[in-house]
């Protein structure tokens, strides 16, 4: 078995003195694996990603990255001031040396070769995400990290973007760790879907759900099979002690939701 790219053990993260956002999370990402983290707003998805990338320090627990791990990070949509004149090419070159040929190749790879000299602030949401992806690919990453990459995109745009991620992954064989706030939309190629709500509730493959005919009918062929539905009845409140997850439960610890 190869060494994992990132391993977290007993990870607990808190902001200031507030109650921890994440509690005792154990997580392993292996080379080439596609893992999607889903969870409602405020469930700690972004926090988990940030802790795994070393952007924030955990209150307790450890995060271990493979030595010399090359990470391609696609942040959530940037809020760029329109008064900042920044071409796409210059953005790709932030803290990085890239030749014109490399810039063109990266943008061609993500399907937007014509954008090199456009200003970042004038791009549409879909174009912007592709430019962010191009930047993430610049360092030949072993792992691509996407934090809600399709926020603000419509459904065809989302499907096209996920298809692109799958293509890129097939080509360079990197692991993909992505975050989705939409409990129903995850990459169908995901090896694992992790449901997070302050802790890992459950994880499993999305294929069981994506093959169900009623969901096929809903998304149909319009998405080219890039999207799958991940059904999750997240209504285990006080009066619903039993869980109704329609996917395999691969962990033994009980889901202790405290709402």
């Amino acid at each position, binding site marked *: 078995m190869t060494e994992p790219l990132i391993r977290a053990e007993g990870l607990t993260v808190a902001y200031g003195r507030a109650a921890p956002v994440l509690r005792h999370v154990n997580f392993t990402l292996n080379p080439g694996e596609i893992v999607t983290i889903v969870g409602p707003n405020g469930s700690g998805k972004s926090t988990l990603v940030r802790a795994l990338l070393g952007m924030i320090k955990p209150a307790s627990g450890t995060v271990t990255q493979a030595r010399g791990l090359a990470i391609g990070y696609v942040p959530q949509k940037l809020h760029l001031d329109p008064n900042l004149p920044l071409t796409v090419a*210059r953005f790709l070159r932030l803290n990085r040396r890239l030749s014109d040929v490399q810039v063109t190749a990266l943008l061609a790879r993500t399907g937007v070769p014509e954008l090199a000299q456009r200003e970042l602030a004038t791009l549409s949401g879909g174009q912007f995400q592709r430019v962010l992806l191009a930047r993430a690919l610049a360092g030949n990453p072993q792992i691509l990290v996407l934090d809600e990459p399709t926020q603000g995109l419509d459904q065809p745009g989302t499907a096209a973007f996920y298809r692109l991620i799958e293509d890129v992954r097939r080509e360079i064989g990197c692991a993909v760790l992505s975050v989705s706030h939409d409990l129903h939309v995850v990459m169908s190629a995901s090896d694992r879907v992790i449901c997070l709500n302050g802790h890992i509730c459950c994880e499993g493959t999305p294929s069981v759900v994506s093959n169900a005919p009623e969901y096929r009918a809903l998304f149909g062929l319009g998405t080219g099979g890039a999207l799958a539905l991940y059904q999750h009845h997240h209504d285990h409140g006080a009066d619903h002690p039993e869980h109704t997850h329609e996917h395999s439960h691969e962990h033994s610890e009980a889901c202790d939701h405290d709402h």
Partner: protein
Amino acid sequence: MIIDDFILRALIAGILVAVAAGPLGCFVVWRRMAYFGDATAHAAILGVALALAFDVSVFAGTLATALAMAVIVAALAGRGWAMDTTLGVLAHSALALGLVAVSFLPGVRVDLTAYLFGDILTVTTADLWVMAAGAGLVLGLLIWRWEGLLTTTISEDLALSLGMNPARERLILTLALAVTVAVGLKVVGALLIAAMLIVPPASARVFSRSPEVMAVASVILAVLAVIVGLVASLQLDTPTGPSIVTAAAAFFAGFLALGAVMRVVKAARTGRG
């Protein structure tokens, strides 16, 4: 015509302010820190009062209070306060407190307009050395940290993922702002320093295609405003600080109009072709 020494000194002082305020002003514009600049500058008046009361140099007093204000504002910003309101309260309170403090000074009739609107024609050679050191420090910091400051401005997440420290970059901007306020006090005064930070970059934005071009163009436009404002104030016998800012504002209006015309021409051309 032989240029009088005091005019030459005024010119150099103005250029020093332009050199620091141009690139720093770009970050003020990009990061929407205009009010932050105001608050820091207004705190300078309190610094003037304290400096005169304790008989230390006005530059040192101004630098100290501007720095204190900048640090307070930066600390509040990190706590998710509604910045607009907080900054408004701080900016105007600092100014009012400073004016009240000045009035308490025993036996001194302080010429407040000099500190509020600048008194560039009384700049001494000693002043120039201090200002040159300050402007050099600001410019050096910005050039040294340019890529990190730019990345942090674009996305703090991106900066963090690259192993940068956005908090440190913010601190550098805060420090640079305080020094620039101290440098600019004698040239345009506490009330108009923010104008030197914002107006030249806003003009440069119209035609700039990269952050670096915008920073350099801001310096050039600010220097031009200093020259035009200084000459005009000597010819028309108007206050120099406000004349410099008026010149900068006139450039801004000109570039805005030019930009609009260019857009129309471009649209007409593409429409035909």
